[in-house]
Each structure stands twice: as structure tokens, then as C-alpha cells.
């Protein structure tokens, strides 16, 4: 992440030189700070809302039930994890929110899962294989109904707004498969 972040900024600087966009770049830095705070405020609401709902779902045993439902799937992806543990429950909530297309809810659940996994991390500051898997799982984003996309397509007059659904599933599944294979291959090199 260190090099990527620096790389992004260096690349931005040189492309601004190459394309004569220095003024636009300068303006964007000034605005960028405000944008960041706006996003943080929005995220604050989301984190509090779903943090609260997650606690209720946990105490009522709802997450436990979800976890049981997703057990076959979890077993394949996280073979070494104790599936009755607290982190497995947070991961179940995260996957459910992803499947329902609630990206805003998936994030707080995923973060909670990360925190619980980190509690048992023998080497703080270094990602474990399961953490990497969770992040890749979230970046592949399996969802049953691509709601936002279907809504926009409908507004633009698509005949069957959902006709891309099967294609989306196949594409998500393939990217998940490749992502997990890469995690597995690269993860073998140890820490």
C-alpha cells in the first residue's frame, strides 16, 4: 500500500505536467480535504447505524443462524477458521450484506470481522491469510441483484433491465475464483 499510495500521487503529478493540468490538480487538492471530511461524516452515520444493528442481530442469535446457513460456503473459503467463532459471525453478516447488494452495510460488518481476526493475529501489523481472503472476497463483490445498475438501466429505457444479471453472476464468480486462487498461490510464500 505504501508504494501504491506514493505511486498514485507521483503519477498524478507527472500526468498533470504531461497534459498541462497543473491548475486542475492544484484545485483538486484544495477541494479534496473537504471531500474527505464529507465522506467521513457519511461513513460515520453508516458505521454507527450498522454497528448498532449488528449488535442487536448478534445478541438475538440472528448472526448465529446466518453463520450456520453459510457454513458450507465459509468452510471452502476459510478452511482453518473456527466457524462458531465471533469472527465467522461477522463474516457471515458481511457476506449476506454483499449478496443483498447493501455495500454500505457490508463495510462495517467486514471491518468488525477484521478487528476480531486481528485480536488473534500473532503478528500485529501484518495481514493474516484469512484477512487477505476477506478483503479479496469483498472486492469481488458477489451480489444476487445488481440493484443500482438495474435501476439506472431502467431509467435509460432498457427493455429488460435485469438481462445482465446472469452475466454479472458469472463474472463475479470467475473473479472470486481467480482472486482466491491468487491468494492461495501467493499466500504459500509465507509471511
Amino acid at each position, binding site marked *: 500500500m505504501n508504494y501504491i499510495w506514493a505511486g498514485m500521487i507521483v503519477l498524478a503529478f507527472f500526468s498533470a505536467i504531461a497534459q498541462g493540468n497543473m491548475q486542475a490538480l492544484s484545485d483538486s487538492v484544495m477541494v479534496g480535504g473537504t471531500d474527505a471530511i464529507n465522506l467521513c461524516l457519511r461513513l460515520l452515520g453508516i458505521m454507527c447505524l450498522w454497528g448498532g444493528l449488528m449488535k442487536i442481530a448478534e445478541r438475538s442469535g440472528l448472526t448465529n443462524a446466518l453463520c450456520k446457513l453459510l457454513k458450507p460456503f465459509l468452510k471452502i473459503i476459510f478452511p482453518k477458521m473456527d466457524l462458531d467463532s465471533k469472527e465467522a459471525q461477522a463474516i457471515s453478516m458481511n457476506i449476506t450484506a454483499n449478496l443483498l447488494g*447493501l455495500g454500505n452495510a457490508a463495510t462495517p460488518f467486514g471491518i468488525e470481522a477484521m478487528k476480531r481476526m*486481528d485480536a488473534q493475529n500473532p503478528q500485529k501489523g501484518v495481514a493474516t491469510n484469512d484477512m487477505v481472503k476477506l*478483503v479479496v472476497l469483498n472486492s*469481488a463483490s458477489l451480489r444476487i441483484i445488481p440493484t443500482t445498475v438495474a435501476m439506472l438501466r431502467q431509467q435509460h429505457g432498457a427493455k429488460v433491465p435485469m438481462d445482465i444479471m446472469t452475466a454479472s453472476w*458469472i*463474472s463475479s464468480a470467475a*473473479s472470486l475464483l481467480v482472486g482466491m486462487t491468487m491468494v492461495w498461490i501467493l499466500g504459500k510464500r509465507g509471511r
Partner: protein
Amino acid sequence: MAVVGAWVLPSMIFSIIVFGLFKGVNVFECFVDGAKGGMKTLVGIMPSLIGLILAVTMLRSSGALDILSWLMSPISKLTGIPDEVVPLAVLSPISGSGALSMYESMLNKYGVDNNIERVASIIMGSSETTFYAITLYYGAVDVKKTRHTVPSALSADLTSFIMSSWIVRLMF
């Protein structure tokens, strides 16, 4: 469709609360307790999030996306991703809101029910903002060494771009 979409979120919240009540949980107290935790987490993530946003806004305004798209063009030629969609494919792992507005302007420009639009729609429906997820998730637990996360996540993204154009050619 829009109707189904509107039902998901309220129904989920409704079922969590009602199920909690049914099981005799003190739902409000529980909610406040959890919300407090969410607040603490956010404060921990904010610094890395601000850093990411700085880099993303700089990238977008500098025109670097054009250069990245140009760098991607050999891959897209080889795999058959339509040229028009490449900028979206490049932007979507970096910025979710940016990708959404680019997707909307593509819908306006190319219309719907054609292959360019379908590839774009599938990309939007099957990928998530990778760097945002990496920053938030690892920022929350203070993990600096992300090991093989970035290459694995990016190869997953690349797969979804290539697959989306292949599937569109096969299915439509």
C-alpha cells in the same frame, strides 16, 4: 425492479429489530452500544481514508486516468474489452463514486441495450472499489503489511473486466 430494490434495506432493518424484540433483547440499548463501537472504529480509520481520498482526487483531476487507460490498451486489445469501457475499468477499483458518475455519463452517451453499455453494466454490477476496501479494512486494524492483498484483488478485478466482455459477446 426499482420496487424490489426499495424493499431490501427496510426489510433487513425490520427483521433485525423484530427478531431482537422477539428474543427479548433490549434493542435500543443494544443499538446505542454497537453504534458507539462504530464511532470508535471510524475515528481509527479516518487518517488512512483521508490519505486515500487525497491520492484519488489528485489522480482524477490530473488526467492520469487517460494515461492508465492507454497503458491498459494492449491488454484490452488482446482480451476484447471495448475501448470505450477501458476508462471505467481503470477507475472502478480506485473510486466508487467516480465510477458511478462515469457509468451514468456512458449511459447517456451510448444509450442502453448495446454491447458497450452491457459490458459497462456488468463491470459496475460485479466489482467493488478495491482500494477503498483495502484502506478501510486494514486501516481499522492498523495493518501496514498487506502482503499479497493488492495483487490478488487486482487480478480478481481484471478477471471481472475480461469476463464481462466475453460473456456479453457469448450471450447477446
